[in-house]
């Protein structure tokens, strides 16, 4: 039993992910996240009544329309609504819930004990990152799959492309979580760890209007500056648009550009966080 051999990184990562889950369980914010998801699922399960024969849809027992609705169209609209809500509000809430998990592990007395273990610093931070991602991923899978099942059972319409919302929302959260980790490592402040990624979400939305803005800008350099910022910042707005196009209209969209540029941003932020964490004194 004496520790003489090396410690497997896989075992350590699993222990760190499990620990992040346990800490998240002790935080009300994470329960809130799952409670909101459950509320949304219950809304579709009990409150929304769909009459397949008459083509009528009612909410809280009150028919929303007197005329017959296209059930397929209704399902797709529901998918669109849920995926956008998850993408924007789900990501925002997930960032809010995750913001404290990095600074908490950097508390003096806690970090020094963790660093005394035969664990490399990058593994320590990656374990925390992956644990966070796993929690939010579990919430996204739970919400989207539950709604997909409820709507599928109620209507018999099984559109697999709705599940794309899990991947898209989780991807953009993974990118923004890299920023949470970076800000957390630098500042050890939970508040700042929320503010910076949320600001990035807003900036991305503004930068995403580049077709309009570029026409309004008078000088060449300001247009180029705008374009440069557009390429650097993660494409939160563009990915939301691509996801909606795919889910609602089943159109071929350019996923590649927003995905790789956002991924590069995330990798750069996480690498910077790992570099700073590796060189810091605790």
């Amino acid at each position, binding site marked *: *039993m*004496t*520790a*003489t*051999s*090396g*410690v*497997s990184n896989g*075992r*350590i990562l*699993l*222990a*760190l992910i*499990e*620990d992040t889950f*346990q*800490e998240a*369980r*002790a935080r009300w914010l994470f329960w809130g996240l799952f409670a909101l998801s459950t509320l949304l699922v219950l809304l579709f399960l009990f409150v929304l009544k769909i009459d397949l024969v008459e083509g009528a849809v009612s909410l809280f027992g009150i028919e929303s329309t007197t005329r017959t609705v296209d059930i397929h169209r209704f399902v797709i609209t529901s998918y669109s609504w849920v995926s956008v809500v998850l993408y924007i509000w789900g990501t925002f809430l997930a960032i809010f819930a995750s913001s404290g998990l990095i600074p908490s592990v950097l*508390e*003096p*007395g*806690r*970090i*020094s*004990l*963790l*660093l*005394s*273990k*035969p*664990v*490399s610093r990058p593994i320590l931070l990656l374990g925390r990152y992956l644990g966070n991602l796993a929690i939010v991923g579990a919430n996204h899978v739970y919400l989207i799959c539950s709604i997909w099942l409820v709507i599928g059972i109620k209507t018999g319409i099984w559109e697999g492309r709705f599940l794309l919302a899990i991947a898209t929302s989780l991807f953009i959260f993974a990118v923004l979580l890299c920023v949470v980790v970076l800000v957390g490592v630098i500042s050890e402040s939970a508040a700042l760890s929320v503010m910076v990624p949320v600001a990035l979400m807003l900036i991305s939305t503004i930068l995403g209007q580049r077709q309009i803005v570029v026409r309004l800008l008078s000088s060449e350099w300001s247009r180029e500056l705008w374009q440069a910022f557009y390429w650097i910042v993660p494409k939160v707005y563009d990915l939301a648009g691509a996801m909606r196009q795919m889910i609602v209209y089943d159109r071929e969209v350019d996923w590649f550009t927003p995905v790789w540029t956002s991924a590069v941003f995330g990798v750069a932020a996480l690498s910077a966080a790992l570099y700073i964490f590796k*060189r810091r*004194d*605790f």
Partner: protein
Amino acid sequence: MRDFVLCWRGCPALCIGGITCGLTQAKAAANDDKDQAFSIAHVELQRGNIALAKEQIVWGDVSLEYMGTEYALEAESLCKVYRSRWRGREIAAVSNLTLHVPEGVKFGLLGPNGAGKTTFVKMLLSAVIPTSGTARIFGRDASLPEARLPVGYLPENHRFPTYLSGAGMLNFYGALSGLSQSERQARIPELLKLVGLENWGDVRIKKYSKGMLQRLGLAQALIHRPRLLILDEPTDGVDPVGRRDIRDILNRLTGTGVTVFINSHLLSEVESFCDYVAIVNRGELALQGEVSSLVAGQGYAITASRVPESATATLQAWSSVIQNAGSGHFELRVATLEAANEAIDVIRQAGGLVESVKSESSSLEDVFIQATRREQAA
């Protein structure tokens, strides 16, 4: 290659295949004859003739001891300089600190608050990155994660995750220390029993008292049966009963071959528990040695009154401690009987009155105060 420790007044220093850093220190106290003997011993060590070298190198305070194959801890010229971000001001927390802790001993690191003890310990564990110098744990570079595998650590002002139960915490740190699930399942009840928390394993840590937290922290440090236990102020803030419990647990480790390294400012505890001590002051090593040797030095306490100022300077030259209680009243300590007689002569010639002369042995507290004052004076 075998490692040896050259002991001078119990002060361990590293000698590998020849006399290295310890020799300089030992030579400083040796007379000319000893110097010659050291040279012979050096040659014999280089030839590998350990028996002959040992014969040459044993006199009085100086001896050569075989200390096993390796040191538990080795710090070579460790420095840590903090720079303020904006002004660029530099503060040396630890300066050129060289320390060797032989395997299997109980070693105490002492020093006043802010002396750099915790920074030093953190450098050993790579929580603080040294500005210069090297640290090794059982011969391995301390900056490598695998070097920390045989180390159990209890930090000062620890913050254990309050969302975990006692058993859950041991399970988590056990996993990080490299134990498998089955090993942890077997070890956790054993440890909870050892630290007297067998009925508290399933209770959340936030309900634990300070003493219970310290005992749990000790269990956490012991979970993977470490060869080196580093304890940073293990009894800080713990009541006397809790302190005794911790001491009892540590005493059970005696004879198991575990090296215990305690960083503390509680001198009485270190004196009663440790074999070796090092005193750090202002980031520098002020003194190190075997506790029994350091406290064994007999001394004499002389109390005198009406001592004129003119005699004070002369007395200060010999005596290790002088306390001026006001109005010419003195209490001074000297190391030898000869010095005591000379001091009495000076006092009487200056017109002072000797009130009492007492023979006494020094405590670790006296040694500590002397060492830190000497450093400050320097």
